[in-house]
C-alpha cells in the first residue's frame, strides 16, 4: 500500500499531528479490543448464540481508531452494518454491544436491533444502518443539524466501497457541498463489496475522486496504519471543522473475514488474504512502532492482551447470561407518546 497521500485538492497548510507514544498505546488497545471482540463475536455466532447477519470488522481496525483520535466527544458518527468496531471506538460498552448481538434485554437496542441496528445517543453514535448507503444522507442530515444549530461539531459518515455506487451518495455529496455542511465522508475501501471487487464494480477505482464533481476535496490514505491515518487526515478534517465544507477520505483497508459470517470468500485468493495479514496488519504494525518507542515491552503487551481478553470474555459472559427481552417488549417502541 502506498504511504504517500493522493489528493484531489491540497488546500490546507495545517501541520500534520504527531502521535505521542501514550496515545498510540491507547489506540493499540482499542484496535486489539475491536479485534478480540470481533473474534469472540464470530465464535458466538458459530455456537448459534448470534444469529442472522453478522459483519465483522477484523482487519479494518486502524480506520475508525485513527479517525476517532481526530474526533471530539460531541462529533456525530454514523456507519453501515459493519458497525461493531465503530461502536467500540465511540466508547460504547462492549457488554451492551455483545448483548445486542445475542439478542438480550441488556443490549443497546434491548434486543430489538441486532448486529446492524445499534445506537447510542449518549456517545453520539447514530447507527448501525442495514441498507447500503442509507447512512450517507442521514449522516449528511446530522451535519445539517450541527450547522443549523451552529454547534462546534462535525459528522463522521462511514461508507464502504460497495456503497459508493449508490445514487443517494451523490445526492448527499451535492447538498453537503452546496450548503457547506461539516461532514467527513469516510469510504472504507476494503476491496470487495460483498463478493464483487472494486475493479468489477466501479468504472473509476480512485474512490477519493468521487467528490470531485461537487468540488469536495478527497484524499486516499493507507487505512492499515493508525499513525498514517491520523497524520494524513488531520489537516483535511481540521478544514471541515473550520467550516470549509465536506471532504472525502478513501481509506485503503482490507477485511480478513468474509462479507458476513456465511460468506466462504471464494472471490479472492488465500495468498491475498495471508499477504495482507502478514505484511499489513494494523495491530502488528502498531505493536512494532510501540516496541520501538520503548513505552512498552513484550511483557507489557502480553499484559494488555490478557486485559483485553478479560474485557471481551466478560462481555461474552454478560451477553450469554443476560435475559431475553420480556414478551411485553414486543409492542413497545413502535411510536412515542405524542
Amino acid at each position, binding site marked *: 500500500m502506498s504511504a504517500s497521500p493522493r489528493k484531489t485538492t491540497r488546500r490546507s497548510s495545517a501541520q500534520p499531528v504527531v502521535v505521542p507514544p501514550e496515545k498510540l498505546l491507547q489506540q493499540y488497545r482499542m484496535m486489539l479490543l475491536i479485534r478480540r471482540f470481533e*473474534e*469472540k463475536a464470530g465464535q458466538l*455466532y*458459530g*455456537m*448459534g*448464540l448470534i444469529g*442472522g447477519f453478522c459483519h465483522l470488522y477484523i482487519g479494518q481496525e486502524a480506520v475508525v481508531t485513527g479517525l476517532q483520535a481526530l474526533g471530539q466527544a460531541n462529533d*456525530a458518527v*454514523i456507519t453501515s452494518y459493519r458497525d461493531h468496531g465503530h461502536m467500540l471506538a465511540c466508547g460504547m460498552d462492549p457488554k451492551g454491544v455483545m448483548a445486542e448481538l445475542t439478542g438480550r434485554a441488556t*443490549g*443497546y*437496542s434491548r*434486543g*430489538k*436491533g441486532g448486529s446492524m*441496528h*445499534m*445506537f447510542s*445517543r449518549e456517545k453520539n453514535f*447514530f*447507527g*448501525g*444502518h*442495514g*441498507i447500503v448507503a*442509507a447512512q*450517507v*444522507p*442521514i*449522516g*449528511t*442530515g*446530522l*451535519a*445539517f*443539524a*450541527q450547522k*443549523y*444549530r451552529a454547534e462546534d461539531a462535525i459528522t463522521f459518515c462511514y461508507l464502504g466501497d460497495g456503497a459508493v455506487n449508490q*445514487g*443517494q451518495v451523490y*445526492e*448527499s455529496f*451535492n*447538498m453537503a457541498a452546496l450548503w457547506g455542511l461539516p461532514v467527513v465522508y469516510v469510504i472504507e475501501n476494503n476491496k470487495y463489496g460483498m463478493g464483487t471487487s472494486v475493479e468489477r464494480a466501479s468504472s473509476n477505482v480512485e474512490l477519493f475522486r468521487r467528490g470531485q464533481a461537487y468540488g469536495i476535496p478527497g484524499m486516499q490514505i493507507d487505512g492499515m496504519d493508525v499513525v498514517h491515518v491520523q497524520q494524513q487526515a488531520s489537516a483535511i478534517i481540521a478544514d471541515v471543522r473550520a467550516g470549509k465544507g465536506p471532504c472525502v477520505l478513501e481509506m485503503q483497508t482490507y477485511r*480478513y473475514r468474509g462479507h458476513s*459470517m*456465511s460468506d*466462504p470468500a*471464494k472471490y479472492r485468493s*488465500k495468498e491475498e488474504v495471508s499477504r495482507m495479514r502478514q505484511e499489513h496488519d494494523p495491530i502488528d504494525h502498531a505493536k512494532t512502532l510501540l516496541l520501538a518507542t520503548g513505552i512498552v515491552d513484550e511483557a507489557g503487551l502480553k499484559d494488555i492482551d490478557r486485559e483485553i481478553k478479560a474485557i471481551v470474555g466478560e462481555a461474552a459472559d454478560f451477553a*450469554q447470561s443476560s435475559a431475553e427481552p420480556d414478551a411485553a417488549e*414486543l409492542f*413497545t*417502541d*413502535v*411510536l*412515542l407518546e*405524542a
Partner: protein
Amino acid sequence: MPITVLLPALSPTMTDGKIARWLVKEGDVVTSGTVLAEVETDKATMEIECVDDGVLGKILVQAGDTAVPVNTPIALILEEGEDASALDATPNAPVASPAPLEPADEPVSAAVIAPLPVSSAAVAVGALDSNNPLDITRTAFVSSDPVTEPEAPFAKVTHMTVREALRDAMAEEMRRDKDVFLMGEEVAQYNGAYKVSQGLLDEFGAARVIDTPITEMGFTGLGVGAAMSGLKPIIEFMTFNFSMQAIDHIINSAAKTLYMSGGQLGTPIVFRGPNGSAARVGAQHSQCYASWYAHCPGLKVVSPYSAADAKGLLKAAIRDPNPVVFLENELLYGQSFDVPDDPDYIVPLGRAAIRRAGSHVTLTAFSRMVGVALAAAEELAKDGIEAEVIDLRTLRPLDLPTIVHSVKKTNHIVSIEEGWPYAGIGSEILALISEYAFDWLDAPPLRVTGKDIPLPYAVNLEKMSLPDVADIVTVVKTVCAR
C-alpha cells in the same frame, strides 16, 4: 486447561457439517487467525479460523467424518505453558457449554393460522388486548380512544383556502419552535410549486425555508438525519408520487429506527405534499399512497379534507414526536372552509369526524372523497337513504371505534377512496368491520374505489377511472337493497 474448539455454525441454517480436511496437525503452533480446517456446510466449503494462541494439542474429529453436529468439540488447543499431559484431563465437552442451536424455521403457532374460532363479538373495540392472538390490532394501527364526539361549532372563524390553512399551520409552528424548518423543491424562493409555502421565506429566512435540488432520496434521508438529532423537519414532496424515490428513508430509516434502537432514537418529522390524482396529469403523477404508508408500523398517516382539519392536523403532526405522512390533495388546495381563529386549534391525530349524521348507511372517506361522499349523501337523501359520512382524517392510527359505533347504528357500510381497490384502505376497513362488527351487518360491506388501472390521460377515461357521486349512489343502493 486446554481450549476446546467446537465445530461452528457457518451459516444461519447449518446444523451439521463435514470436516473436509485439516490444515494443521497436532503439535503445530496456532495463533488467532490461523486457518484450522475446511468444513463443508449445507451451502459451501468454508474455512474455520483459530481465535486463540497456542499449540494444537489434539484433533478430536478426523477429516472425512460427516454429519458432525454443530458445537461438537473437534480439537484441543494447549495454551502457553501447558504440555500434552493437560490433554488427558480434558473432558470432551465444550468449555462454554453453548446453547443448542435452534432450528432455523420455528413451527408456526397453530393459533396464528387457525381461523377465528369465536364470534367477532368476542373482540371488543376499545379494549384492545395485546396478548390476544385473535386481536390483530395489537399495536397501534387502530386508535384505542373512545368514540369521537361531534365537534362543537367554532366560535370565531375565518373563511380560507386549504392552501392558506396549511401555510398558517407551518408559520405558527415555526414561530413557536425554532427547531421546525421546511425543506423541499421550490418551497422558498418560488413560494411552493402549489404556493402552499407562500411568504414563509420572507418571514423565516433561508436557513429555515430551504430550497433543495431535485433529489428526493437525498433530502428525505437528510431530513431523517436532522430529525434523529432532534430537529423537526417538514419535508415537502412536490407531489407524493415523487416520494417513491425516497420511500426507503420514510420506512426503513424513519419508521423503524425507534423500534430498532430500543426506544432511543425517535424521528420527529413530517412528510407532506399533494397525494392522489390532480387533473389530466397522467398515470405517473396521479397515485394515492394512502395504503402504502398506512401499512407500516412506526408511521402515522393523515389525510385531511377541510381547511380547519388541514391546519389543526398539520399542527398536530408537526408537534408529534413520530414520523407523520401528511397526504394533501391538489384539487382541495383552492377550496375554502371556515377555520377557527384560535392559534392553538389542534386536531388530535387518530380521530375521525362525522361530517353528516345518518341512520341507514355508514360512508367512510378521506381527503377529496369526503366532498364527493357528502354530495352523494345529499342525492341519497332524496331517495330516503340517510347516510352517515365519516371523514377518517387519520388513516393510521385509524379511528376504528367511531366507525364501529356508526355501523352498529346503521348496519351498513360503504368505504370510499380514489386509490386502487386491491389491498387498499377500504380493504382494511371492511376486514376490520368483519372482525369487530360482523354481527351488526345487514348486508355485505362494499367498496367504491378508483379503477384498477394506471390513471389515463384522456378526459373521458380519466373521469371513468375515479369515483364520483353516481358510483357511490349505485353502490350504496346495492348495499341497502334499494
